[in-house]
């Protein structure tokens, strides 16, 4: 299962690669990384229909995670759109409602509980 992680913090890559090293080694998950919303969109247009799941931060300079979500859910052709999980440091209801309205599949708050995330990802990949 191909997962695209979008976050403006470069160290997120190291973290994910270590957290999911067994899954990566076994080939269950494969991660790609983008450091901004714009970069993520470019990546998606080049690899459409490959990416099953997007994990995106909301607060990023430039295009925000919510805008990315809107593009992914409404503009990306061809369907079906990938699943999108939003991750944010601000777990406020405004952001949550907005994300849900735009069609987010899940809403996680930082600090990320990787055990829970792992379970969710396993559930998606085996579904």
């Amino acid at each position, binding site marked *: 299962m191909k997962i695209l992680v979008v976050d403006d913090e470069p*160290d997120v890559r190291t*973290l994910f690669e270590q957290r999911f090293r067994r899954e990566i080694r076994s080939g269950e998950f494969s991660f790609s990384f983008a450091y901004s919303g714009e970069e993520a969109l470019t990546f998606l247009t080049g690899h459409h229909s490959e990416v099953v799941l997007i994990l995106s931060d909301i607060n990023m300079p430039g295009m925000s995670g919510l805008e990315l979500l809107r593009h992914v859910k409404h503009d990306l052709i061809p369907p079906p759109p990938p699943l999108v999980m939003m991750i944010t440091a601000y777990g406020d209801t405004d952001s949550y409602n907005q994300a849900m309205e735009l069609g987010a599949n899940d809403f996680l708050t930082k600090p990320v509980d990787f055990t829970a995330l792992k379970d969710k990802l396993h559930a998606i990949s085996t579904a």
Partner: protein
Amino acid sequence: MNRYTNADLLLAIGVVMLLVQLVRRLLDVPQRLPRWNRLLSWLWAPAAVTFAITAVLHYKNTHLDDAYLLVAVGAIVATLLRLRHYRPARTLLLGLAPVVLQRFISVCLQLGGYQLLPPLTTLFKIFGSLDAYWFFAMVFLARSQKKALIKQEQLREKEEQERQLIAAQNAELERLVAERTAALTQQAAELNTALDELRTTQGQLIQSEKMASLGELTAGIAHEIQNPLNFVNNFADVSAELVAELEEEQARPTRDAGLEDELLRDLKHNLFKINQHGQRAASIVRGMLEHSRASTGERRLTDLNALADEYLRLAYHGLRAKDKTFNATLQTDFAPVLPLVEAVAPDVGRVLLNLFNNAFYAVQKRQQLGEAGYAPTVRVQTRRVGDDVEVRVRDNGTGIPEAVRTKVFQPFFTTKPSGEGTGLGLSLSHDIITKGHGGTLSVESCEGEFTEFCITLPF
């Protein structure tokens, strides 16, 4: 009857009393010498008594009137002498002298039975007739002298009155001046107190401006600290997992040396990351403390790239925390090699923060206008220009109207709604850059298009 009476005496009385009257009126004898005046008013008495007695006795002596005249005139002369300090009195004396002298001489000649030589007699007679003219001339002179003196006296009195008036006015003026001085002194004291209060208030305002900008930062700071802390926790967790895996690997009969090396390498990398993110959080806390503290004014070599980057993020996240829907593109165009600047870092940081806050405020305002295709952008650029380092903060926000552009550095000038801005931010920033660091802070703007603040600092 004439043969037996001394009628000449009566004539002499008339002359004497006329003279007395003249002297009294001319010289104001009743006022000047009251006792002498009474004496003079009885001057007719001896002659009258003598006349009466001689008339009864039928005794006639042609020298009686001369004798009486001598006594009476003597009394008058004595009176004049008493008044000799009065100028008309001296003039009268002078007028009387030839008459008296002439009379005296002629009486003496008669008594002695002498006769002057004929030419001398004529001369004597001529002088005698001139005496009367002389006397009246002197009387007139005395009169005019008296008038002049009275006039002088009046003038003197008037002057005295004027002098007193002036003195009174002076006293009044001095009183007024003293009153005014007291009022002014009091006002000056009041102004001094007000000035002291203003200084205190200014200090408090500067501090509250700092705290206000810090307040705006709180959410940004929380976000900025939360991120590195998450990394520290995550890297620590994952490292524990790595250690567990390594132990597992070591317990196996056939050990995978390659995997062990990889795990160890990751562990080492994670420890480095934990340290790095810990430092990042610490530096943010340190920055916040420095920002809130009153400036120590200590100059240190400062990397303006790092300072600008730090405060740009703080300002951005600060605004984001208040308005979740807000988003902007941050562009950083840092000179790769930038000389370090001798600067009070927290002060310059405050200036940058202020400029960033303003920039974000401006793009947010323009975004709220709902312009299609508008992309809020805040750019910070650093470069070296000659002997200066230049930091430009540019936003594509609402811009500053030309009418307002010259006022933006004035204290208490703000375009924000009341309660949102102190109006001190740019004023303090200007002071910090120009007075504190010998640099310049200028602004360029086009309404509805952009605003660009430019800081130059010498290195």
